[in-house]
């Protein structure tokens, strides 16, 4: 039940994009059509779902004082986390290239750029600062990935429709995308007061 609560909280209430503005670069750059947005969102779910538990194991068994070396190595956290993420993205890239060449062509440069998607590293850093357990970190990873997918599909759908509307020239493209994201953020804020734990306890 705990895992489900964390999943819901990460996906809807603490949404990576709309509550923390993480992963904005690829969010704004790839959200022109729903199809590519979907592909990138799935890749992000996959990378988050894998790197989160791996980074949990690293910070628990290698970097902490009670870990393998018995020394406090937390200052190495950034370098190790980013190395894990970079190698996972490389793996995803090879898998996608093998099984779905058309998606690989559609995503192009943005697949390697998942490495520098702040949502991935941010997720790992949030996981450390919130002191999740192993199971919780898995569901937090999947939940935040799912929330990211939701947000990018929503903005891509709006931007597809936006092509037919008359936006002031100076606001076209980037400006209107920023304002739309702000409006979506406000809409998502209405979910903020919800406490999944209280709901499942029947209160």
């Amino acid at each position, binding site marked *: 039940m705990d895992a489900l609560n964390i999943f819901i909280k990460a996906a809807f209430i603490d949404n990576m994009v709309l509550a923390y*503005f993480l992963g904005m670069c690829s969010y704004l750059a790839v959200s022109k059509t729903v199809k590519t947005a979907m592909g990138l969102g799935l890749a992000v779910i996959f990378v988050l779902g894998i790197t989160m538990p791996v980074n949990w194991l690293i910070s628990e068994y290698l970097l902490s004082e009670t870990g393998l070396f018995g020394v406090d190595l937390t200052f190495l956290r*950034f370098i190790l986390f980013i190395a894990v993420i970079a190698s996972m993205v490389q793996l995803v890239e090879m898998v996608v290239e093998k099984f779905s060449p058309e998606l690989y062509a559609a995503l192009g440069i943005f697949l390697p750029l998942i490495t520098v998607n*702040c949502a991935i590293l941010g997720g790992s850093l949030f996981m450390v600062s919130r002191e999740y357990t192993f199971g919780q970190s898995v569901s937090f990873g999947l939940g935040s990935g799912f929330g990211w997918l939701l947000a990018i599909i929503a903005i891509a759908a709006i931007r597809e429709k936006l092509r037919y509307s008359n936006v002031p020239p*100076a*606001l076209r493209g980037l400006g209107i995308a920023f304002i739309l994201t*702000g409006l979506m953020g406000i809409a998502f804020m209405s979910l903020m007061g919800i406490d999944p734990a209280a709901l499942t306890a029947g209160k």
Partner: protein
Amino acid sequence: MAETAVKAPVVEKEPLFSKKQKVLITDPLNDNNPVTVQVLGICSALAVTTLVVPSVVMAIAVIFVTAFANLFVSLLRNSIPTQIRMIVQLVVIATLVTVVELTLKALSFEVYQQLSVFIGLIITNCIVMGRLEAFAMANKPWRSFLDGIGNGLGYGLILIIVAAAREIFGKGSFAGFQIIGNTPDYFINTLDSAWFGWYSNNNLMVLPAAAMFVVGIIIWIQRSYNTKLVDIS
């Protein structure tokens, strides 16, 4: 003038701050701003802009990291194998960010706590990575260093404008000093002053969503004046 034009291809040494070098610093402030034009580094920028002081610290940290990451990668650029250049760049960036993090933790623990994970997220700040790929891998160390400073300044400029707007309208203060508002401890006590009596704090500006609106409006103003930036598509 003509003489220098003839000499130009031969002469290697030029003054440290020649006109060509100055452009590297001034261009990212407006025409090629990393946030509003190149769409880089929005990720870690917007969440820290509720108050001015953490934003200034963040801006300084990013200027430091972009400048030195550009310098070091530019020095190494001929010996980095292309296949693993991403990892090499990330290691350079991560090392610099660790230095910044530990320094900040030692100097001002309070600000360090306010910025929490966002200092770490400078690693994945697209400005750093983007400038390394686009500039430092192909240019000499000194020029890359200036480009790093310029882009860091351009980012910091937007960050501080957004933070100032949000703090003044959201909290009625600037960098911690109360300016407008309706409680007696404010600098201009609006209970007595008819000038600011109408104003009460706008809580919307404290919400994360307001940062998006402020950046959207900055882009709107900038592109109205600078029409060559308008998106034609």
